[in-house]
């Protein structure tokens, strides 16, 4: 905690080794799921268990493409459409909203800010039944639209609260310079402020996507047909029907993680900023 200087050779080595050990312990569940998906059913039940697949088995992945009911790649597609839909709604609504909250002091601003804060803390249980009735009345029950509309409600408040800080940190001079150059409020917002806040917009898009991708409750409750359900609900269904078919189940899990892994590899800096600025004072 107090070391300003970099650690020297030997200490550096020791700390690095400890950190690798911590990493291995904490990521073990992921590794275990991955290798289980690559084992044969026979090997999975072997005792003592094998810590890497002795016979590489890709059937669990291939079989999913062929079978109809529990096609995980179709579930993957469903999740993708739902998550992208929710992300688009969340970003389109949250970007202007956060700008308005950051830059204008209109009447009711505090109340609106507070309502976004509160919605972040809501449990899904409170919303499930009323949304269920609402979507039935809107005739969108059992469609992607229901899940998209519901998932966006997680992304919007998060995005507003994160982006508000980005917009607030942009100096007023910049906006005023834009007015001098002939911009009005809306064109200044579109051409000057949004490009500057782009990293913030990325954070919002990524988190809205991740929230929607990880959702189970909405997808499962508002969509009845397996062919339209997101991948998380697919896993849950599959577990109910083939409880111990671990090679298939873990293959399902690995496929679900793919987009998360890609986001992590290519956009790690946004993740850190989203996780920290979401909770620290605004």
């Amino acid at each position, binding site marked *: *905690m*107090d*070391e300003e200087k970099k650690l020297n050779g030997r*200490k*550096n080595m020791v*700390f*690095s080794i*400890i*950190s*690798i050990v911590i990493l291995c312990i*904490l*990521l073990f*569940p992921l590794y*275990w*799921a991955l290798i289980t998906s690559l084992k044969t059913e026979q090997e999975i039940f072997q*005792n003592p*268990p094998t810590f890497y697949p002795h016979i590489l088995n890709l059937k669990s992945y291939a079989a999913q493409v062929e079978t109809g009911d529990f096609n995980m790649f179709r579930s993957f597609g469903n999740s993708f459409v739902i998550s992208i839909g929710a992300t688009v709604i969340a970003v389109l*609504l949250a970007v*202007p*909203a956060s700008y*308005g*909250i950051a830059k*204008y002091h209109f009447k009711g601003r505090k109340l609106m800010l507070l309502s976004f*804060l*509160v*919605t972040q*803390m809501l*449990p899904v*249980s*409170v*919303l*499930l*039944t*009323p949304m*269920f009735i609402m979507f*039935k*009345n809107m005739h969108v029950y059992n469609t992607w639209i229901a899940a998209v*509309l519901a998932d966006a409600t997680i992304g*919007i408040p998060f995005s*507003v609260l994160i982006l508000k800080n980005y917009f607030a940190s942009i100096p007023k001079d910049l906006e005023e310079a834009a007015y001098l150059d002939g911009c009005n409020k809306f064109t200044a917002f579109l051409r000057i402020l949004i490009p500057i806040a782009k990293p913030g917009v990325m954070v919002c898009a990524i988190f809205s996507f*991740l929230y929607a991708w990880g959702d*189970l*409750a909405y997808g499962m409750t508002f969509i009845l047909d397996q062919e339209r359900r997101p991948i*998380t609900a697919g*896993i*849950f269904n599959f*577990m109910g029907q083939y409880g111990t078919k*671990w090679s298939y*189940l*873990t293959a399902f*899990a690995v496929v*679900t*993680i793919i987009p998360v892994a890609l986001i*992590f590899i290519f956009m790690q800096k946004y993740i*850190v900023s989203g*996780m920290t600025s979401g*909770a*620290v*004072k*605004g």
Partner: protein
Amino acid sequence: MFCAAALFSIMPAVKYAAGGWYKVAHGACYTLKGEAFMKKIKKMFRYENVGMLFVLPAFVYMLVFVGYPIIRNIILSFQDVNAGNLVRGTKNFILFDNYLELFQDDVFRTSLFNTLRYTVMCLVFQFVIGFILALFFSKRFTLAKPVRGILLVPWMIPVTVTALMFKLLFATDIGVINYILRSLHLTGKNIEWLTTPGTAMFALVCANIWIGIPFNMILISTGLTTIPKELYESASIDGANRIQTFFSITLPLLKPTIESVLILGFIYTFKVYDLVYVMTSGGPVNSTHMLSTYSYKLSFEMFKYSKGSAVANVLLVILMIVGIFYIKATTAGEEE
């Protein structure tokens, strides 16, 4: 406030409308002043309205898809709604009957107690482990940043997948945890983790801690970087040892961070749903039901929608009480 502003904006207009008489009485100069004032007011109004326009779409969306459902849920909990009269049909108001029934319901009491117990256990462990890791990774060794980055992965993974992974780890026959315990001769026969009441809760807590560690670690890490280095330097000059420094500098200066980590952690853990639903579905024999899963079971498996809503409202009330602390902490720095 609003009325006063409106009145002010009208006043110059009235004076202006009075026209000729006004000019004669006070001279052209004053009118000009009035006009300028009116313009200013108008401008102020337009400026404020623009801000409102930007926020309105998101606000209305949340009002329709979150605000209305909350109110609907409260109304539902005072009615008697089941599968028959959910979408149409008459809904009888039975007022507090649902709530009164709940407090005599053993499963509800278990769920309430479980949720509290689960939240406290998770919070303690994920906070302590997260804190230790944050301190460890604040040392500047070569792998510090990359490894800390990778450790965020558990937090990002869909909870359904995490639940599945821990189900696999805690599986009776093929579970690695049983294998390790057997190899260390800590247990003779395989433990049925997820089908025994006490151990099922333990498995759930483990899975949740795994998700929570990265969150605690990264927030505390960020908090640590805000502590000025000079404080540590002067402390070491004064001859303070590490433990003294930790308790007299690190902890007090981290207080705001620790507060928000714990409150947010409480909120996220207390409303747990996916993890429990996938891992145990509240079983065995209702022993791991949380408020959220019990509410789901009542509404969507037993079709007692009103009773389910009542359980959800209890959950909501508890969260809101804790939420007040969070809002206080978050908006404390907001005042301009």
